[in-house]
């Protein structure tokens, strides 16, 4: 399975045996999947992988039935989960919470009803609710990005940073990045929020270029923001910027890394396909004796021209 390649070490699966116990009786089991709607590129990719996985697993496991719901806000997601419990009597729930706090009580209620709970990417506010936690590694994302910057700029240099929407995710990434470049001579001369949005990052980068005479490199921290940054640099006709480092693994950016584009020499993954990992593992837990409870951390991997091909999904919208 191709997504397995994106999984790094850090997989600490603890044996509790609950997965095996659930798999014993012979009726059809229902797995509910609740995820945020495709409102931006990364979420679009995540939706794509969720649908693909559900379609594939329905064929592989005749004894499993799936309910997939996408929510455009936390309130709708709470309703979705309540509906799944009330009308479909789900045996397991795979949930990527829109926000941690509002989703914690309803997911807790699902867990208390005896269903298996898999939480993806964003953790809940109370520990110990979920049976399986498939987590992205945000500090690691920042660290890998920072280490790459250091390796590319041994002499140090001046960089600007575009941040995402102000959230814990963004803070963890930036802190990871800052500690990775500490003492390397790389100086962050400016930092602003581009909100993981192409237009916002375009405007911010235009202003950075007016403000600073010399920018050696840009940590755009996201591939959508990298698109805006590149357009701004291009329009300003500046050649002081050596390269732009995005993140997430958008197919257009992977393509550029593959093609050896000098402005986009690398990318750092934060794979939306982690939802597939979560659904697959949940299905394994429900249908076999293999223990799958615990925490599964999906590491952020550096993509360069050498390994880019493994991360290129031409069919995905992201």
């Amino acid at each position, binding site marked *: 399975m191709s997504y397995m390649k994106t999984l790094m070490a850090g997989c600490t699966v603890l044996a509790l045996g609950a997965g095996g116990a659930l798999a014993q009786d012979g009726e059809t089991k229902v797995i509910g999947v609740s995820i945020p709607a495709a*409102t931006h590129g990364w979420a679009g990719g995540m939706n794509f992988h969720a649908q693909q996985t559900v379609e594939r697993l329905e064929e592989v496991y005749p004894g499993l039935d799936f309910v997939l719901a996408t929510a455009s806000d936390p309130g709708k997601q709470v309703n979705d989960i309540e509906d799944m419990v009330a009308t479909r009597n789900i045996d397991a729930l795979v949930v990527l919470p829109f926000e941690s706090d509002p989703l914690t009580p309803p997911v807790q209620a699902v867990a208390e009803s005896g269903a298996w709970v898999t939480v993806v990417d964003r953790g809940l506010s109370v520990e110990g609710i979920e049976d399986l936690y498939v987590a992205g590694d945000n500090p690691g994302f920042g660290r890998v990005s920072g280490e790459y910057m250091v390796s590319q700029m041994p002499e140090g240099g001046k960089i600007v940073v575009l941040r995402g929407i102000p959230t814990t995710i963004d803070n963890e990434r930036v802190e990871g990045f800052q500690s990775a470049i500490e003492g390397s001579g790389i100086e962050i001369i400016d930092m602003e929020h581009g909100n993981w949005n*192409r*237009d916002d990052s*375009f*405007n911010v980068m235009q*202003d950075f270029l*007016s403000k600073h005479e010399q920018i050696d490199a840009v940590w755009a921290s996201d591939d959508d923001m990298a698109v805006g940054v590149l357009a701004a640099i291009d*329009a300003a006709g500046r050649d002081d910027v050596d390269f732009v480092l995005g993140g997430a693994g958008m197919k257009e950016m992977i393509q550029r890394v593959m093609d050896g584009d000098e402005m986009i020499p690398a990318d750092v993954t934060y794979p939306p396909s982690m939802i597939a990992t979560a659904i697959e593992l949940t299905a394994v837990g429900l249908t076999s004796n293999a223990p799958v409870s615990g925490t599964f951390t999906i590491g952020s991997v550096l993509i360069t021209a050498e390994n880019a091909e493994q991360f290129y999904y031409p069919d995905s919208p992201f």
Partner: protein
Amino acid sequence: MSVLGPVIALVVLILVGTALNSNFLSAANITNVLARSAFIGIIAVGMTFVITAGGLDLSVGSMAAFIAGLMILVMNAALPVLGVGIPIILLGMVVALVAGIAAGLLNGFLITTLGIEAFIVTLGSMGIYRSLVTWLADGGTLSLDFGLRTFYRPVYFGGIFGVSWPIIVFALTVIVGEVLMSRARFGRHCAAIGSNENVAHYSNVNVNRTRLLTYAMLGMLVGVATIMYVPRLGSASASTGVLWELEAIAAVIIGGTILKGGFGRVWGTVIGVLILSMIDNILNLTDLVSPYLNGAIQGVIIILAVILQREAKAKG
């Protein structure tokens, strides 16, 4: 006197910007600020008429995203037939204008002929267009073919005599809008309807037709803004044009147009748009304020600009 409020706010902003960063008044920065104001600005001119006539349109941001997506799809689809060249760009422009006018007419029809509250109709169409663009893009991003993008790019980045096209189009829109508002019968009818619909009706103003026209015109201007927007990044997604409607409405109100209708000022809207984008620009050019507080600064300045306007009015 009431005209002074927003102008004072703008002048103060320019002085602050110049004092904080020497690059603020550089030609490159002024071009950046004016060009990026053009999208909201062009839309806000249309919004001035809608609001003056006592209406409101919340759907313009999603509408712009939808039209951008549609334009990209049509141009990509026509590429094998037409090839890269002027005809395909013209086709894209026609699609944007027709889609904009159609969307505006639909809003206007539901509001005038069926008599549904403008807030509800446009809240509904806002959701519809936002979903449609997400659906068209399959949750991802619609991108214009690379060769086409390179050819189309000068429409945003190019210009004549060093003035870029978005600024020229914005200026032309403002001039035509200003003439329509203050010199033409259409503008007077809008104001009459906005201040009292019944009186306007008895004074032989065709209320429904005038209102319908304001929405159609706004839709067309959304199309024009999209024509300028697409060549910039060559892409559209669900995050395109988010909150443009509120920025446009804020610009109109900062500029002195009355939210409940009856009085509109196109040039004031321009000042409003410039104030909004200049705040963003100044916050990016300086390190005085934590970026977490950008929204708060914007909010304070919007409210201040409107207070200044009222104070001045009370004295005058």
